[in-house]
């Protein structure tokens, strides 16, 4: 909305906020954090951009429609739960595997992370859908 300070800081803050949201998402695996807060922080990044410029610009930066993002997030979450069905275990049973990466060590990964990524996408999509629809409401 024409504030030079806001639009400049928004440009700098956005990548930081997005990085921080991914940090929260990954940290949630074993410590406080997770897909929900991560998604919210990511949503603030885009909301800040929408406030500094306008919602059309924010939508352009996002590249993906919020609805598509919600749908994709749901599908990712469903897939993470359904994987255990293929393994013959009850729905949503955690599946784990460890990978060895040279120079890094053992990496222990499981479906809860995939589920969290799904949550991240859904929360991001829902929050932005709300923000955009409110901002675009004709008064």
């Amino acid at each position, binding site marked *: 909305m024409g504030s030079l300070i806001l639009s400049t800081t928004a440009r700098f803050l956005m990548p930081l906020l997005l990085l921080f949201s991914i940090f929260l998402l990954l940290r949630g695996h074993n410590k406080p954090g997770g897909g929900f807060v991560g998604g919210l922080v990511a949503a603030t990044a885009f909301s800040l951009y929408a406030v500094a410029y306008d919602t059309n610009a924010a939508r352009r930066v996002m590249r993906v*429609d919020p*609805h*598509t993002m*919600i*749908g*994709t997030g*749901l*599908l990712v979450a*469903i897939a993470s739960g*359904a994987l*255990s*069905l293929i393994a013959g*275990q*009850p*729905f*949503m*049973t*955690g599946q784990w595997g460890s990978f060895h990466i040279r120079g890094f060590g053992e990496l222990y990964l499981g479906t809860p992370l995939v589920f969290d990524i799904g949550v991240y996408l859904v929360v991001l999509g829902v929050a932005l859908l709300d923000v955009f629809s409110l901002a675009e409401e004709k008064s």
Partner: protein
Amino acid sequence: MRVLLVLPILIPLSTAAVSLVFWRRRSVQRWMGMAGTSGLLAASVWLFEAVRREGIQATQVGNWSAPFGITFVADLFSAIMVVLTGLMGLAVAVYSLGSVDRRRESFGYYPLLQILLMGVCGAFLTGDLFNLYVWFEVMLISSFVLLALGGERGQLEGAIKYVTLNLLSSAVFLAAVGLLYGLAGTLNMADLAIKLRAVEQTGLVTTLAMMFLITFGVKAAVFPLFFWLPASYHTPPFAVSAIFAGLLTKVGVYALIRVFTLLFVVDVGYTHTLILVIAGLTMITGVLGAVAQNEFRRVLSFQVISSVGFMVMGLALFTPLALAGSVFYMLQDIVVKTNLFLVSGVAHRLCGTSELKEQGGLYATYPAFALLFLIPALSLAGIPPLSGFFAKLALVQAGLGAQSYMIVFIALTVSLLTLLSMTKIWNEAFWKPQPSDSSRAEMPTAIRAVTASGRMATGTLIVPIVILAALTVCIGLAAGFFFDLATVAAEQLLDPTAYIRAVEGGMTR
């Protein structure tokens, strides 16, 4: 068989998710709606077969053992209800293709319908009280949106009453769940069934039973708590009110039957007598309301309430025959009620109005359609070869067996009055000649609307009605088979040991 129990939830959820991905492609959403409900029906029939052959099925989500994790259980009663959910979902999805307008479709009508079906299936399948609360919320939130979608004046007025009362009932539900957890230390229904029988303070258990009676009573629309239903069911699109009338109140009745057979059977003399009184009053007020109304869907809305009275009556009598009667009544009533609301939509389209006074002449112009109305209408009134007759017969027999002559008398009177209210619709909308003054201007536009939308659209309206009417006749003709099913379901309800054993498969003690 673990997959089967979660499929009725996963299929609608995945369908809704894919529809969201294709948000701007309405045609994809329409096809996904059809595909999703067909898949749900197929999965539910599969589940039903498994339960019928191998007995009660259970799975522990996330592999957390029973009293701690969330259990999904399907006994025969749940399985029957899930099949009907799939069937009604498919019928309404087809009907929606030709009746829901473009604006509603582009605001996510089809994904919402899927989420609603997911909530209903979840409520039928869960074996955990808190999880049941969550499914009720899923169902309610999607129904709020479906009810208000479109934003017409009448719709919003109905939606406010619906939302307020249902939120209140959810609050009571949550409080009751909290108190119950404090009392018993578990919310797994099978585990509760064991623990509540051992609780010494029966007074507390009865208090909690009353709280659950209130919350599920609101959802089921029983006597003093029903007024949100006739205030809202006549406002949304016809497809939406059909699925609401067919399924939502039945979820409330299902929950009542589940908790008052499995959990709160400590003081049957008190709780079930109270339920019997409520059942009688619900039947009477429902049918009196129906007789007094002059709008097609308002008459039907009050009939929904009256039917709930019959279903609850079987629970209150609490004999094997009475419960079988309740299950059978629910089974056939879901088909009949959905169908009647679908018929009312076609009548609205043909006459351009839903006011019975302004409708007319449908028998003269569309005799075959008139027959399609008569089948569910007469079944609702309980005329012999049709399904409603056998349901009422079983309940009346059970009433006589339990020597509750008062409720039998009420049930028979209410059936007569039901016939009266159905005759009223028949006389006004079908038999009487087209009123000349009001609709001469509207009638041609209505007919043009039908022809303009093409044969395809009319087909999507008529085919579900024909299939559901045929089903009503089939349930009536094969009443023996369906009643045997209901009897087995009732036996499972009355003797919870098999249910508890199925859940305990993964329970650690």
